[in-house]
């Protein structure tokens, strides 16, 4: 029987990063992916001939530069094109484009508020300071707060020092960030809705909360970090779609000797004497390994692959409470030509970045109101990108792919999640109706439409309740609480079973950091 040093469950981008890191360190690694393609939610598929959809995740957020360098990803085809503009069309014919170039942004914002235009740079500075605080956390294996282990104590001490170094003003700001809602926090800085609304949505993406829900301000910072990263800033499109990232990581992993199998669904983690000793595939095959590493979400890992019988009931309870609650869907469109917005026509650089349908804070909160009571928003928040304008390789010449991230689409609709398939097309219509208010001829140029509800995300991609981040990125589920206190250091109560997915610190998005940190922690701990 084959024996590996490590088996990685799931060929998502984090699993592949872990595989590459372990393989590079000389370990014999096997990755098992259920689907026919690698990448998990970071996948490119040609659903409609000639058009390559980034089916689920559509932008690279904070893919760590050290991962890109160490795994030599550019050599394996990774190319990231930064987003230069965030565009907000408004129904009243006005619009706001925020650019990489601060002066240009200032000129645009001052059309709405001269005061806000000036405040923007101060806000930027404040975020840089806060980013300084958070940046090291993203690179760190979370220390357990109660730990007496010297290296963890040192980490905690250094964190404490950072907070202390902020001074009273900085501490006040940090506290506000961690407690306020995104809308309230932005109210302290800005007056114009056109600025606040599209900024506030960063606080709610992938969560089942509204822009006025307390705690959402903190997530703004995560978003902002991508923008202030300056030279190594990493918000962008991957050339060839997000699947190209996964493929580059997979090729790197193979280069270092990892073996990768697709269409190899796993039934159970094989547990003997409280220890993980390998996996049992759905077809009954057993594969042995020194360690098993799960890249799938905590629910699926513990309640599915491990099974409650191997777990402490208290942990089961905590995992059940770990909030998945998918709140978003995805609509991918193939377009006959570039769309033209009424408020700012043409296919200029303003639509080459991301486009937000988020005209006001009230609009966003109303969208959330419907979701609270089990309906999808009839006028949802949309985050739209048209990657083919920047990367012509994903569509035939002159034609385009348009990706619409749609929030809110609650997993638990009032009829029950299993009724999503009946509602899917109506949900898709809502998105097109919304777009039509800004792009009147959108219907005429749609060649193909793919609609994914949270139910579809769960069925097809294995994301429990359709949560795109393997669990909400809310404060109580981050850092040493991700996925639960005590098991935030990539380990699990089952010996030799590790976690490396977005359900672990520092969370979701195409960041690669969980996979990277997990693999390095395994190597440090030994046994693999």
């Amino acid at each position, binding site marked *: 029987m084959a024996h590996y040093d490590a088996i990685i469950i799931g060929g998502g981008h984090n699993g592949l990063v872990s595989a590459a890191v372990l393989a590079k360190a000389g370990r014999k690694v096997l990755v098992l992916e259920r689907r026919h393609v690698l990448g998990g939610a970071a996948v490119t598929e040609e659903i409609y001939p000639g058009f390559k959809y980034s089916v689920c995740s559509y932008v690279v957020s904070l893919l760590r*530069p*050290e991962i*890109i*360098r160490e795994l030599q990803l*550019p050599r394996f085809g990774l*190319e*990231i*094109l*930064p987003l*230069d503009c965030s565009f907000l069309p408004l129904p009243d014919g006005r619009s706001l484009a925020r*650019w*990489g*170039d601060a*002066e*240009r942004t200032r000129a645009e914002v001052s059309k709405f508020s001269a005061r806000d235009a000036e405040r923007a740079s101060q806000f930027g500075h404040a975020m*840089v300071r806060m*980013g*300084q605080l958070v*940046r090291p956390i993203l690179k760190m294996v979370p220390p357990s707060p109660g730990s007496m282990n010297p290296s963890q104590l040192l980490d905690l001490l250094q964190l404490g020092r950072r907070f202390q*170094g902020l001074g009273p003003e900085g501490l006040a700001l940090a506290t506000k960030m961690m407690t306020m809602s995104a809308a309230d926090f932005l109210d302290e800085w800005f007056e114009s809705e056109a600025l606040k609304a599209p900024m506030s949505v960063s606080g709610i993406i992938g969560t089942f909360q509204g822009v006025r829900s307390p705690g959402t301000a903190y997530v703004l910072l995560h978003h902002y970090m991508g923008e*202030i990263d*300056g*030279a*190594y800033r990493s918000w962008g499109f991957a*050339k060839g779609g997000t699947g190209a990232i996964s493929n580059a990581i997979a090729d790197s992993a193979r280069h270092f000797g990892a073996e990768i199998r697709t269409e190899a669904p796993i039934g159970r983690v094989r547990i003997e004497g409280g220890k993980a000793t390998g996996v049992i595939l759905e077809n009954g095959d057993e594969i042995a390994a020194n360690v098993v590493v799960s890249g799938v979400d905590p629910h699926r890992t513990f309640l599915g692959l491990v099974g409650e019988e191997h777990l402490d009931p208290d942990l089961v309870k905590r995992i059940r409470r770990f909030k998945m609650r998918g709140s978003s869907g995805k609509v991918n469109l193939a377009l006959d030509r570039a769309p033209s917005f009424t408020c700012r026509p043409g296919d200029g*650089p303003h639509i080459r970045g991301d486009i937000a349908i988020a005209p006001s804070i009230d609009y966003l909160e109303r969208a959330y109101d419907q979701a609270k009571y089990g309906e999808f928003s009839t006028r949802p928040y949309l985050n739209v990108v048209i990657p083919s*304008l*920047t*990367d*012509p*390789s994903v569509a035939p*010449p*002159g034609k385009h792919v348009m990706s619409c991230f749609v929030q809110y689409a609650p997993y638990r609709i009032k009829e029950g999640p299993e009724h999503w398939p009946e509602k899917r097309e109506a949900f898709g219509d809502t998105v097109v109706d919304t777009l039509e208010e800004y792009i009147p001829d959108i219907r005429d140029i749609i060649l193909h439409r793919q609609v994914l509800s949270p139910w579809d995300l769960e069925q097809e991609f294995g994301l429990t309740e359709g949560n795109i981040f393997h669990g909400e990125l809310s404060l109580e589920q981050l850092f040493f609480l991700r996925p639960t206190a005590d098991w935030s250091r990539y380990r699990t109560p089952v010996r030799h079973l590790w976690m490396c997915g977005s359900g672990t610190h520092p969370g979701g998005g195409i960041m690669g950091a969980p996979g990277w940190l997990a693999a390095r922690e395994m190597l440090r701990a030994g046994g693999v």
Partner: protein
Amino acid sequence: MSRHSPFHERTAALCTSYRWKEWAGYHAVCSYDTSVEREYFAFRHAAGLLDASPLIKYDVRGPDAAAYLSRLSVRRIDKLAVGRVVYCCWVDDRGHVIDDGTIARLDEDAYRVTTGEPELWWLEQNRRGYDVSVEETTHRYGVLALQGPSSGAILSAVTGTDLTGLRYFGLTSARLADRDVLVSRTGYTGDLGYEVWVEAEHALPVWDTLMTEGRAYGIVPAGLDALDVTRIEAGYLLLGIDYKSAPRCLIDAQKSSPYEIGLGWMVQLDREPFIGQAALRAEKERGSEWALVGLDVSWTALEALYERHGLPPSLATHAWRTAAPLYDGKRQIGQATSGTWSPTLKRNLALATVRRGYDRVGTRIEIETTVEYRRHTIPATVVDRPFFDPERRRS
């Protein structure tokens, strides 16, 4: 006062940043936008269109042209086939590099030479005894560099000819916008790319056609700042920055041989006499004092350095060309002459000249860097050039 390129009407209208600089007596766009990113990424992901008309051009004609150019160049030119281009450098009697550029064989007895600086004096000086004419044709042609992965598709579409078969360093004539043009598979970005040569009076329709038809392929007009980032990623030298032209140096220490600037591979010693042959042979035997290398400057160290000052790491968004000293401990062992943050590789790159013995790949040295007005050194490693070398460049 600088001249206008034949494309000036178009480039000036698009240059919203008003950022220009002088290039060989011409106005040239640094970047059309205030930010260089969009243009850089066009080169790497779609296609960037750069006005390269200021490139200094000489047409060399006559029955002795091949022999003449072979005598002038460190590599053989007489074997160059019609429809081929070669990258080359020229040295003086003492083997010091005067300039580098390309030589294209247009016809049986006709060549086009491009140089970084005006070198007519030198071409004329060495013409005696050869039946050739040398004529500067810089102003007669407009040149557009179309570089990037979709450049081949665009040119094929606008010329109605499948140019994807044109080999690396190949040259062909084509029709574009009902005008005769020359297309060469050459460039300075280290990517798939072409240069289009057109008589100046036909320049504008060629530009217009490329821009209109190229739209569907993501064409973006690009300036010299973006080019500078790509050429460093490709590990290409820039005359006047990474090495100096010998006749323009005041002291010998400023001069370099081809071996010292990483162009030793092109020197063909064993053949008919050529200018600099003896000196180069002697240098090859005794070994060179200096070597040109690629450096990977540690990002982790830079980040830590900024962190010590309580700052997030920051780097210029443009390539730099203010030389920085290199050290082995306290001993200065060379200088980095230009460098850039590579947005594609996420690495901090530099081209450097180092003393013999420090040029092996993997050698660790230190580079001076300034944070908050204070001087520090951080580690850098000698790495292979080109830093970035996509298959499509040659395929």
